[in-house]
Structure formats: C-alpha cells, structure tokens
C-alpha cells in the first residue's frame, strides 16, 4: 500500500517537474537516442521533447514502476574483442529529486581502479585481494575508463570542467571518481542530461569484471553518477574491499559485439541485429535497476526455461561453459529452489528475467551479482556432494533482494547486503540441502553453511565492527570474516533470541518496506525491534557496533556427598547418597549475553538454568541424590557468535572416543606417508 501511494506521488511530481523544466527552457532536450522499447506498457506519456525518466515496465512484471527512478542510462557501446575495449556513447538523464539545486555531479569511473597507482591496487597490495597479488602485473592487463567528451545538454561541452577527486584517502593518482561542476545549477525537481563519449579498457578479470581468454564480463564499465544520500553526494572511490551504490532507474543499452559472441546482460533483450562488418548489435532494456552488466563469449551453451513467479513469469537463462554443460540442470534446480524460498519467505521477485552466468574457469569473474544477472562458480569436476555451484548461485541470487532491490550502500554498510545475504543463504541452503550438509556431504564428511560462516567470523573476531565502512577494515580477510561471517552468525544468534518465526517476519517486513530504496543500518535494526517488539540495543551495541567477542565456558563441575565427613561405605551408591553439586560458568570475553544452561545428572534428570551472563562467573548449586555428569551452555545451539564451542560444555567423565577417532585418521595418514617414502625412496 505504501508503495502505491509513493508511486502515485512520484508520477504527479514527475509531471509537475516536466512542466517546470519546459517552462525554464534551460535545455534543448533531445529525445532518447533510441526507441524506448517499453512504450507499450508505459503508464504515462512524457511531454514530447522534454527530459524525463521513462516509466516503462517492459522488464518487470508490474504495470507501474516500482522504484523512484532517478536515472536513465542510454548507452551505445561497441566491444573490441581483440583489444578488450569498449567505445561508447552514454546519455545519462538525471532527475534531481534531492530537494535542492545541484551544481556538481560526481561520476564513478570504476575501471580506473585497475591501475598500479590506484587506491584499489594500493589497498589490495597491503590488505590482500581475492584475485591477484600484483607481484607481477602486465600493463596490457590493466583497466582504464576515459571520458573522451562530456557535454551537458543546455550547458555545452564541459569536458574541461572535470576533476578527479579522492575524498576517501586523498590519493592524487586515483582516478575512480571524477567531479563535474556545472556553470548552471540544476534546480530541485529538474532534469539534467549528460552526453558522454568514453572508452573503457577492461582488465584481465579482476573484482568480477574484465576479460579472460575469449570471455568478457562487463561490470562497472561505464561512467556512473553517484547517489545523493542524506544531504550530500555519496560517491566513494573504488576500494579493494568495496562494492557499489547507485540510484534506481532505467537502462537502455546497445551492445555491438562480434557476431560469434553469445551475449547475456541485465534486463530483457529487446532486439538483435547483424551488422555488415561481421558484428551484431544486441539491445537490452532494464527497469527499476541500478546497474547494468553484460557478458560475452563465443563458447557459451545456453539453457532457457520459465519460472512462474508470484508477479508473473520469469525467463531463466543459464549461460554455461561447454565443459560444465552437464551441470546446467544443477544450476537451474538451485535457482528455482532459491526463487521458491525467497518468494515465499521474503517477497516477490518482480523482474521478467534472471540470467545465471557460469563464467570462464580460472577467471576472477565468479560469484558476482548485478541486477537480474549473476555469475556462479564451478569447475569441470564437481561431485554431486560438493555444493559449490549451489552455494554460489544461491548467494548471488540472494543479492537480487539484498542489494538489487533493497539497495543499501555497499561502500559504507557492506554487512547490510553481504551479511544479510549470508544469513538468508544459511537459511535457504539449510532448507534445501540440510542443516549440517549444505556445503559438503561426501564420504561421510560434512560441512554446513552456518559452520563456514562462523569459521569465517572466527578468523577476525575482534578486529572490526560490522557497522563500519567497507574500506576501513583492517584487511580483506577481516572484511570478509566480519561482513559475511560475523553478520550471518550475529543474525543467527539474534534468531535464537527473538525466535525463528519472528526473525522470518522481520526479514519479510524489512524487504517489503525497503525494497527499491536505500535503507540505512538503523532502518534494518529498527525493523527488527519493531517486529519483535523488543529493545535489542544491548545486543546491537555489541554485535553490530562493537568488536566484543563472546566466549562462555563451563569452568568446573563438582559433586561430592553432603555428609562427606561421615564414614559410610555405601555413600557413593547411586540413589542413596545426597550429593552437593556445583556447576561454575565463566564469561571469558567481553560480549555479554543471557544464556541457557542444561545440567544433566547421573539419574537422567536434566535441569535448565538461565544466566544473564553479566558477571564474570556464576555458580549453580544442587543437592540431589545424583551427581552432575555434564553441563552445557546453549544446549539448543542457537548462539553462533560464541568463539569457542568446545568449552561450552563439560562432561565429568572424559570420553576419549572422539579423540581416538580423529587420531586414527592421523595415524593412517602418518603410516601412508611412511609407506610412500619407503616405496619411492628405497
């Protein structure tokens, strides 16, 4: 309901602004470079000749736009497969909904990150990167993004007005953000149109963009305007640990590529024409998206099908590597199962397409999300019990919700997209593949997604807080461990506090309320409190805003006869003697949390105790005709944030079987090594 009201207000405001703009005569507005393909389904007709953002709905299963559309990108690009360059013209129409006049516009030039002196590479060398170590980096593998010409409609050629800025770190050699000052400010409510000619040289794949062999993934490849957010431009430099942030809008993109290329992209394909020069031009249209990515390779094998979603049919397209063709069915199955879960648990997927790309092997292009377009990750050898393709496809699809529609600021609040997505990934994969087997289930060896997330968190438990700018993490591994692992573990722990059903309602409420907007961390946290009806600041201050580490342990168990001083031969007899027992618990670290403890006695009795966890230690005492045999903190295993699961329980009698079982593996390996040496060396 709220969405409908907002849309009605938006349409009314848009019409008013168009009239204002025409009256101002500040522009000689040209129409779109190309036919807008969604006219047949548009809900209103813009004033001819005036600037506007199209209200097309060709790419969504909705008769009205679903977002506040701020930008309209019309890009005509030609890809040179030999040089890995894109020469393009871009017409960017921007709607000033900031409520104030704007006299400058920052633009992201992301591909300039892949230069030796850029902030991205500088950080990657210090903090680590998922791609390469830059020990040896050939110049022909660099990336770049150059604006050849920039004209603002009505204000002329402003190419010379552009200035590179580096507001995050002051690196003068970083060219990932360019700021453009306009001679004439754009009034509130007005539109402005930029006509940009640029050339992008894609790098050998880095950060899920670029080429590898004859494959190419065009991600973050065109000049992109920043986001006016909380009264200022939000346009960060590209950092080794950051992703992206952009406004919703409409994309009309023409891609000209060699004719033998199989192409996929965000949005819906509108047309495809062969050109006389042995190229072809494929046209795409996207509605209510905030980015546009594409891929091409002459070797893709394509599988297509239709998924009937809540709002209408979705065309599923799987672009597989030839050697992975036998895994296409696996990709489709997990995509459908994930869609089932997300639509059922969180809300509808409104887009008409979803393209799942199986990227070039050994490229840094796997595991990436773009609107309606994701990349998976697989290999020619993928046993059925190894769920890597499932994990990656599920995760990246999840980003269609947590990034694609709930479009949080990935520069500043990476945990809101990666972390929330990792949490829902645990939930969905638990449901599909089993709680203990959602990553690996082969030869009796198991690994679950929740275990993996927790292990990731443990690698950097106390270094950084979740609520921290992504580029201010200590290292890449700390960024990964906290943003993904800690967030997932913290939300799973929160689920134990508020209850699984309540948490499910929280996630649905959060999605439905904030889809197609840019919520903040407090929007999310307040939603949790509102839906659960609980004050959870004590938890958020530690788990989200703090770096506290949790570690509770069963410190000691004592049981002895109450009348220990009386000589009695039978006092140890079971059931006859009254025992005084003590169970001592210890808070080893600084994270404070109330806990359940389960104490078991040798007569089979179990007692559950509650401890607020505030003091450094506590002790429970019992007088019973039974001894305590064990105590376990968090017996339901809901606390994922505890940094040591082994000391959460203590059994009075040791059980050497687990250690012996593990040691038997070690013995086997040691003997195998001995025999192998004996085989080859003598």
């Amino acid at each position, binding site marked *: 309901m709220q969405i409908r009201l907002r849309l009605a207000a938006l349409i009314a405001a848009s019409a008013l602004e168009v009239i204002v703009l025409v009256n101002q005569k500040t522009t000689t507005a040209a129409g779109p470079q190309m036919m807008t393909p969604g006219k047949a389904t548009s809900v209103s007709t813009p004033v001819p000749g005036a600037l506007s953002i199209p209200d097309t709905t060709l790419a969504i299963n909705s008769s009205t736009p679903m977002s506040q559309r701020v930008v309209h990108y019309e890009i005509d690009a030609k890809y040179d497969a030999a040089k890995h360059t894109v020469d393009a013209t871009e017409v960017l129409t921007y709607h000033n909904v900031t409520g104030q006049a704007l006299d400058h516009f920052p633009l992201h030039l992301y591909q300039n990150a892949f230069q030796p002196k850029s902030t991205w590479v500088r950080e990657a060398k210090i903090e680590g990167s998922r791609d390469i170590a830059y020990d040896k980096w050939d110049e022909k593998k660099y990336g770049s993004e150059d604006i050849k010409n920039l004209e603002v409609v009505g204000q002329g050629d402003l190419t010379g007005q552009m200035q590179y800025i580096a507001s995050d770190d002051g690196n003068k050699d970083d060219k990932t953000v360019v700021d453009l000052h306009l001679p004439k400010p754009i009034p509130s409510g007005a539109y402005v149109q930029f006509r940009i000619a640029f050339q992008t040289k894609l790098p050998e794949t880095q950060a899920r963009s670029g080429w590898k*062999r004859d494959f190419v993934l065009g991600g973050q490849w065109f000049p992109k305007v920043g986001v006016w957010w909380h009264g200022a431009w939000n346009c960060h430099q590209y950092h080794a640990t950051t992703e992206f942030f952009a406004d919703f809008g409409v994309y009309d993109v023409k891609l000209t590529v060699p004719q033998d290329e199989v192409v996929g992209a965000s949005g819906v394909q509108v047309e495809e024409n062969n050109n006389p020069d042995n190229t072809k031009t494929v046209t795409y249209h996207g509605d209510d998206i905030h980015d546009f990515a594409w891929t091409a390779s002459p070797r893709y094998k394509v599988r297509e099908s239709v998924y009937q979603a809540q709002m209408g049919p979705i065309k599923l397209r799987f672009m597989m590597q030839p050697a992975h063709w036998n895994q296409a069915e696996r990709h489709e199955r997990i995509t459908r199962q994930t869609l089932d879960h997300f639509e059922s648990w969180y809300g509808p997927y409104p887009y008409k397409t979803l393209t799942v790309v199986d990227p070039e092997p050994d490229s840094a292009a796997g595991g990436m999300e773009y609107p309606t377009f994701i990349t998976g990750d697989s290999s020619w050898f993928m046993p059925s019990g190894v769920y890597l393709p499932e994990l990656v496809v599920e995760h990246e699809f999840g980003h269609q919700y947590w990034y694609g529609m709930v479009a949080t600021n990935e520069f500043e609040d990476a945990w809101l997209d990666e972390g929330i997505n990792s949490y829902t990934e645990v939930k969905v994969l638990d449901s599909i593949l089993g709680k203990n087997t959602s990553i690996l289930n082969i030869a*009796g060896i198991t690994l679950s997604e929740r*275990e993996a997330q927790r292990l990731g968190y443990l690698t950097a438990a106390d270094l950084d807080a979740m609520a921290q700018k992504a580029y201010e993490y200590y290292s890449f591994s700390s960024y990964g461990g906290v943003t993904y692992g800690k967030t997932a573990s913290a939300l799973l722990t929160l689920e134990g506090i508020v209850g699984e059903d309540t948490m499910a309602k929280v996630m649905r409420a959060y999605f439905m309320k904030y889809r197609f907007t840019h919520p903040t961390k407090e929007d999310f946290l307040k939603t949790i409190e509102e839906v659960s009806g609980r004050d959870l600041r004590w938890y958020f201050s530690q788990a989200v805003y703090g770096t506290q580490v949790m570690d509770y342990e069963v410190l000691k168990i004592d049981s002895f006869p109450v009348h220990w001083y009386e000589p009695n031969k039978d006092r140890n007899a079971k059931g006859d003697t009254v025992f005084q027992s003590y169970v001592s618990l210890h808070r080893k670290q600084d994270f404070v949390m109330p806990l359940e403890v389960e104490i078991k006695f040798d007569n089979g009795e179990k007692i559950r105790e509650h401890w607020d966890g505030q003091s450094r230690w506590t002790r429970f005492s019992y007088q019973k005709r039974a001894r305590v045999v064990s105590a376990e903190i968090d017996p339901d295993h809901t606390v994922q944030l505890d940094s040591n699961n082994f000391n*959460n329980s203590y*059994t009075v009698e040791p059980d050497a*079987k687990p250690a012996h079982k593990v*040691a038997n593996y070690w013995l086997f390996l040691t*003997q195998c090594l001995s025999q192998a*040496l004996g085989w080859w060396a003598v």
Partner: protein
Amino acid sequence: MNKDEGLLSSGLGMVLRNKRYIVWFYVLNIFLGLFGTVVFVNQVGSILDHSLQSDRLLHGFSLGTLIEMFSRPEFGPTVASRAPAMFFALLFLVATAMFLPGVLQGYASTYRLPRDDFFRTCGRNLWRFIRLMMVAGIVMGIAASALFGLHGVLERKAAESTNELLLPEVRIVGLFLIFLVMATLRIWFDLAEVDIVLNDQRAVGKSIAAGFRHTFRSLGRLLGSYLVATIGAAFVLSVGLFLWMKSVAPESVVGALLISQLTLLLLLIPRFWQRGVAVSYWQQHMMIPVVPAEPIEPQPVPAMVSDGSRVIPNSPLPTAES
C-alpha cells in the same frame, strides 16, 4: 629357476613364501606411526575429551568442527603434531633401507633364511645401500625436478586454452608419464639393490650399471610387472577406503582402526611384490651363471727313466731307435 617363469608369479611366490617380512614391516610401520601420533592424540584429547561438541566428530565427521578444533590455541601449533609424524615417517624409511637387504636375500633363498643370516646380510650391505640411495636420490631428484618443471610449463600452456578440459587432461597424462619414468628409474635402482645383495657386490657402481642395462633391456616386461603391482596397490587402497566409509559406523573407533590397519597391511604387499619381481628377474637374467666344472681326468704322474729322460704317460716308452 625356470627362465620362462613369469616375473609376477615368481615374485608373488617369493612374497607369499616370506610373509613374515610383510608382518615385520607392518609392525614397524604401525609402531612408528603410533609414536608419530602421540603428540596429536594429546593435543586433540585436551580439546575433545570433556566436550559434548566432540560428538559432532564422533557421530559423523563435521569438517567445520575439525577446522575449529585445529584453530584452537589449546591445540597448539600444527607443527607440533606434524613434526613427529614426519620424523617417524623418515625413521621408517631408514629402517626400510636397513632391513631391505635381508628381505632380498630371503626372497632369493630357496630355504627359510635364518635370522642370523638375515641380519648379517643387512649389516654387510648397509653402507652399500646408503651409497646406492644417494645416487638414486640424485638421479631421481633431478629427473623429478625436470619432469615436474616441464609438466608445469605444459600446464601453463594448457591453461591458456579455451578448452577447459585440456588442462586436466594434460595434468593427468603428464602425471601418468612422470609416474612411468619414475617407475622406470625405480626399477633400475631396485635391480641394482638386488644385484648388490645377491651378487655381494661391493662396487655399487657395477650394480648400478648392470641395473641400468637390464632395465632398458627388459623394460616392457619389468615396467608391466611393476604397473600391475601398482594397480594392485591402488585397488587395495580404494577398496579399503570404500569399506571404511561404507561398512564402518562413524562412531566405531575399533572398526575404523581395524579396517584402516588391514588396508595398510595389504598396502605393503604390492611394493614387496615389486621387489620379488626384481629378485626373480635378477635370478633369471642377471645372475652370473655357475658353469658346471668338467670332470677332471686324472693326469698320469710323469715318470722318470733312469737315463734322465722323461716318460710321458700313455706314450710309448722311448726306445733305442728314438
């Protein structure tokens, strides 16, 4: 020995006639392995023995729990458990080198080799074997380095291909070829070992030369025999692991121990089989034949005649005319 007897059958016959050697080496293997595992058991026990969390390792095998266990500070540095394992593995190698001459002598014997003879053979050949191992180590090290280097180059080239399967194909074929070359070298030095022991050859170089000549003279036969034994080892390992996974309950420590140790015991056989093949080959082709001596006809004692002239037996006595 029958020259036409198959190497595999005769080699296997030697192994079966001398099963005690397999048992001895197995006992050595498990004892040294146990020594190499003591530190690990203590490290693991300090974390698992009193924790209910360890149940995730006992009933099933949670990789996440295992990784968390290794990452605990109480576990200590992994080198603390790896170093003893490596040390005792090397000790097993040294023991193999020490006792192998006795094994080879035993295989060649048509009777049960007395213990004194076994150890005497070991002692007599120890220094020869050390020298041989040094040469073998140099040769095989150089060969392995060169082959793996070449393999790496081929892999990098294959990785540039747009055919994804080319890389694993090159990798597998390359590793198989490396295995063949290294197996050939192993045959060479195995024959040299046998020659040193059975020929009581002090000049190790001569045995190495003989081993080299014969390796390439009968390469197909020898390599084929070695390959069969290797396939046998792969089969034993595969079946053992399969049974371990499928027939042993996760919480059955004794069952796991039995099946794993049985696998390791059987896994020793193929290598001893190869040594039996080498001994058999040596006996068929490298042994210096003992030429039967011709019966010595008694020589008549030269007789002297009174005039001082010699009388040649069986010759007519000198006459006055002569």
